[in-house]
């Protein structure tokens, strides 16, 4: 997308949404609220991806992340009755260390960022098509991602089975959760 005033405005809007929701997600007391805030944050990110010409990623973000992972988090919050309601305040020391560490990392990263040498958008760039992604994923040659793709598939499968096994111990009904997880991941 061309860099115009509109995109700038949109970028800052999305940024504000992302950061605002992100901050909420880590600060609000009710866990259900923070999950919803996270959802907002992810939506914002998806919008940012659209702004950056990555429609496929934006779509995946919404489908898989929001539709799968976050929904599942909400499920888990609801399943375990105490999770959502009772608030466990952290100690002051934890807040201080959290702020400090966050500041350290932020400072470090911001210190590195300005050194990024190449900041202009390549005028000849073309948006990545889904076809291209599919071909690259299944390409077994030097530039292809076939092996990682296979590995990820196996990893997902084993994670599914593992999750099912872990959760199955107590109640047979727990298998339902795993089915959903597996479904959302694929």
């Amino acid at each position, binding site marked *: 997308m061309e860099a115009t005033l509109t995109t700038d405005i949109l970028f800052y809007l999305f940024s504000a949404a992302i950061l605002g929701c992100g901050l909420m997600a880590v600060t609000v007391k009710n866990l259900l609220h923070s999950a919803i805030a996270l959802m907002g944050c992810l939506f914002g990110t998806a919008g940012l991806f659209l702004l950056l010409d990555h429609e496929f990623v934006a779509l995946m973000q919404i489908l898989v992340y929001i539709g799968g992972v976050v929904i599942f988090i909400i499920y888990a919050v609801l399943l375990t009755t105490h999770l959502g309601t009772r608030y466990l305040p952290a100690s002051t020391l*934890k807040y201080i*260390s959290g702020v400090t*560490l966050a500041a*350290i*990392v932020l400072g*470090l990263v911001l*210190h*590195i960022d300005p050194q990024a040498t190449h900041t202009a958008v390549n005028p000849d760039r073309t948006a990545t098509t889904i076809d291209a992604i599919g071909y690259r994923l299944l390409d077994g040659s030097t530039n292809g991602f076939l092996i990682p793709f296979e590995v990820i598939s196996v990893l997902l499968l084993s994670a599914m089975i593992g999750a099912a096994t872990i959760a199955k111990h107590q109640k047979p009904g727990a298998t339902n959760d795993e089915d959903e997880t597996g479904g959302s991941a694929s």
Partner: protein
Amino acid sequence: MIESSWMILLLPFISFIGGILFLHKQPKLAAGFSILCNGAAMVMALILAVGFLSSDDTGYHALAHTWSYDWFAITDTLTVSIGALLDPISIMMLVVITVISTLVHTYSIGYMENDASAGRFFPLLSFFVFSMLGLVIAPTLVQMFVFWELVGVSSYMLIGFWYHKPSAVAASKKAFIITRFADAFFLTGIILMATQFGSIGFDAINQGATAFSSMNTANPSFSLEGGAVQVFTALAAQEGSAGFLGLNLLSWATILIFIGGWGKSAMFPLHVWLPDAMEGPTPVSSIIHSATMVVAGIYLTARLFPVFAVAEYTLSVVEFTGAITALFAAIIACTQRDIKRILAFSTLSQLGYMMFSLGVADMEHTAGFTASMFHVFTHAFFKCLLFLSAGLIIHSVHSNDIALMGGLRKKLKGTYFVTLLAVCAIAGVPFLFSGFWSKEEIIMAAWSNGHQCSAIIGLLVGGLTAFYMGRYFFLIFHGEYRGDAHHLEHAHENKFMLFPMVLLAIPTIIAGYPMLTGHTFFNTVIPQATLPTHPDHSASWIMPVAIAMAIGGLLVAWLKYGRRAVSFDTPSTNIVYRCISNKFYIDECYIFVTKKIIFRCVAAPMKLCDDYIVDGIIHSSAAIMRGCAAVIRHWQNGQTHVYLGLMIIGLALLAWFGGAL
């Protein structure tokens, strides 16, 4: 005879080994065997002496080095060997030691007849004799040191012979450690002599020193050989050097060596072991005080006289030490009540005479040296006799305290008679007795060589000697018996004990007469030296004064103790008297220094330092490790947040140092 002189050394050793291994359960056999061996050694020594006296060539090289065995090599040029150096003074000592040892062994049969461990006593006594014989025939400093140490060991075992008595054990330890203390200096001196003057042989050292001293005077050029050249060269190199602390190397070496003799001869202030050594059986005391051990220091000084004379100051130290000891011990002896302690202090005093007599001599005026050796010779017999008689008295009345004796002349007639002779000898009763001649000679030598102070001390001590020996004698034999009457009834004179005493009475009288015929002690120690000069008799007033002192001393003693009965009920409270009778509190000083200073202030802090500082550092290094581990372990407390935080810090550090910046 000269070639087989090693037999004299070997016989007592055989007596020791045979006795200790096979005969310690049969005291009678052990005694017989010891007397046999020692008697044989005595005969051989006498033959040797007679052969020596009758030979024409009584010079230095006539008898030296009859045999030698290389023990071990220290460097290419320095080999420790064991051998024999036979010259007049060593032959004189051989005779004295073997005669006295034979008589003391005989005496011990009577003295130890009721003692269960007598079978151990005779071999040990023989070992003592063996050590002393090895010492006197030593041709080198190292051999002398070796036997010097063996004398220490054997005296340790004999003084502590009754090992179940704590006081005896303590006395033996004291004797050993004090002499060992002096020996450390002796050893240092020997090592300096060996490494810096290149020789440990007495001939070489003395020849070199003699040549050096005559080079300094008028008479140069001697033909030297072997180690003597090295000694001479080293001495010449030393000439005029300031050395260390203003003393040159030779003075250091000789004074260090002399300290060895200082300890062994119990000179003030290293004398404290000698009175305590009375805890041993009386035959041991008699042999220590007459022929062995204590005269070792005198003998050492005499042996190295030429080199001592060459060194600056050394002879002054010798003289000073001897004079102080003579006076000091005589004063203490006047107040003691223990029969053996009186004799012990009298020995100290007489040793002081011998020592300062050596100190007043020098290479030109050798009379003091001769007199000293002469006094060693005469003193050995009458002191041995005194101790043997004291042993018999103790054996009879079962007490050491002269306050519990008195009037014994009726019961112990033989003892009374021989003791009288010995007391006259040590007190210097004129003309008839040996002690008179030798003591006279010493004082004369001191005066005529310009050491008036020492001569006056000598005269004074002569008077004191007469007084305390008179006191000793009158309190024991005259007056009324003051002890337990029960013991007196059983008092008798054992014939094994009386016989050697009677024999010893003979030399007590006649040993002085060689003086009148002239003797050859000195020219043999100093090779190619001028003939001994007899003291000039210009100071002819000395003899009457000395006689007057002796008679006067005895007279005062008679007036105070002999004429009427003495009461011991109220000990004097006079502070001077108390101070003297407590031996000037020197023992207390020693205890203070050893217990309070060395043990408490040196050894104890060192132990604390070892336990808490040295070990503490080692332990604390372990503790620091453990502390670090505990801190690190504390981070691994299972709190996920801590892990996370650390992980983030780690990542940040990695990014920082990883070349990102």
